[in-house]
């Protein structure tokens, strides 16, 4: 469907796999081991993060990120991304997103930023 007559749009696709620079404390689980990381950017297709070491390309990985707001000011959420390591070097690790979901963060689990 074409846009309505008279309605002009910016000459570029605004948000197709656009990377949003987002720095957030996170953790990843790879091969059963959990470690800390920091996100550098997030898009609909992937997340780029900085870990303490390079990660093996091709491996499945789970990235956990605290959602930036409480639901109704009381209920903490955690974003759980399941993906695959696409590349990893000194600049960071690119993870292609297979799927993601939101989970209630258990009250016993401390926030990553703490």
């Amino acid at each position, binding site marked *: *469907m*074409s*846009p*309505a*007559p*008279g*309605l*002009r*749009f*910016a000459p570029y*696709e*605004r*948000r*197709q796999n*656009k*990377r*949003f620079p*987002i720095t*957030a404390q996170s953790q990843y689980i790879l091969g059963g081991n959990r470690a800390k990381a920091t996100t550098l*950017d*997030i*898009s*609909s297709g992937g997340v780029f993060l900085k870990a303490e070491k390079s990660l093996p390309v091709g491996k499945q990985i789970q990235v956990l*990120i605290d*959602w*930036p*707001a*409480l*639901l*109704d*000011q009381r*209920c903490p959420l955690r*974003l759980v991304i399941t993906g695959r390591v696409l590349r990893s070097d000194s600049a960071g690790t690119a993870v292609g*997103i297979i799927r*993601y979901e*939101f989970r209630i963060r258990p009250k016993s689990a401390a926030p990553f930023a703490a």
Partner: protein
Amino acid sequence: MSSPTVLVLDGELGFVFALSMELSKRHISVFPARTAREARSTITRFRLRPDTLVVNCSSPGACALAQDLATQHKGIRVVAITSARFQCKQCADRIAASLRDSEDASPLGIPHCADIIEALVKQSRQAGGS
């Protein structure tokens, strides 16, 4: 009084995350949903009464969800966002008619989006008496 709440229906993870970060600085809670079905489930699960609904026009069922919530919740404001084209002619016509200046169709940055949403949340709470 419940806290200001925004339901965001959009599959663009980076956008929703960035918007949530910005709105959390303004003490506005954001409930994310990727699909209209997930949005309805979230509303039921958390007994949610959103002040503002932000929907990506390309999300299937977004228009019906907006209409349902507008019927159920007095004063709710709806923000329709789009990146390329409208799925729904009714939405396209309505938005085209509301634009006095075609430059209004230019992309907005996250802080600007948050400014608009914050203002609409305040309007909604005044209109809804919540």
